[in-house]
């Protein structure tokens, strides 16, 4: 278990491939790691009633969301033998095709990271108060709901 204070998981706008690449590069000094696993959530251009989603505008109950991310992080460290874990989620507008969620787990061994990543991503989807307004190309919208 770690005893760190909740971090701010949120980033304004899309998460860039440069940011993700840099994050991977930073782990080259951590040579006890033998396996990384990464989840990237990407905004899908869903077609609904003949209209196509062009972007999602994310909002969150930020204080509670960061506390929830922290709980999920602590639970994952308690459950799995992880060397490190990073979670970033977008706020504001993320266009279709751009990345809105980046989860990165690392461990000495591969099996752990497969299980841990699924556990973390499913918990994020169901427990963290983040809201998404799906904006269509004609500027109408609907509210996204996780299944």
């Amino acid at each position: 278990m770690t005893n760190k204070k909740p971090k701010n998981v949120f980033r304004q706008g899309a998460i860039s491939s440069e940011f993700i690449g840099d994050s991977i590069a930073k782990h080259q000094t951590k040579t006890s790691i033998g396996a990384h696993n990464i989840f990237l959530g990407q905004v899908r251009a869903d077609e609904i009633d003949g209209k196509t989603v062009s972007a999602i505008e994310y909002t969150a109950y930020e204080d509670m969301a960061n506390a929830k991310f922290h709980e999920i992080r602590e639970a994952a460290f308690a459950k799995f033998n992880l060397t490190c874990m990073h979670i970033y989620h977008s706020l504001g507008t993320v266009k279709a095709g751009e990345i809105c969620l980046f989860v990165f787990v690392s461990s000495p061994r591969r099996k752990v990271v497969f299980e841990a990543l699924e556990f973390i991503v499913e918990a994020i989807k169901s427990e963290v108060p983040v809201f998404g307004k799906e904006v269509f190309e004609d500027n109408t919208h609907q509210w996204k709901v996780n299944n």
Partner: protein
Amino acid sequence: MTITIKYFGLLTEATQCHEESINFSGVLVSELLENLFSKYPALKHKNFQVAQNQVLVPVNTKLSGNEIALLPPYAGG
């Protein structure tokens, strides 16, 4: 007591605001909700959970002051 109420996502379309402070003399979360439903009739038909001071609570919970948030279904990731 003075309670800060926060609204998120589609609920803000029913309330036309993200946050407000109200003076309320009731005891339970459910009483506060009844009060809000009469103020914002459209809210009554929305699906949401209630958090008190950032913890999800059932509606028969006693109000402890500070912050109440109305949270529609989550859509993270």
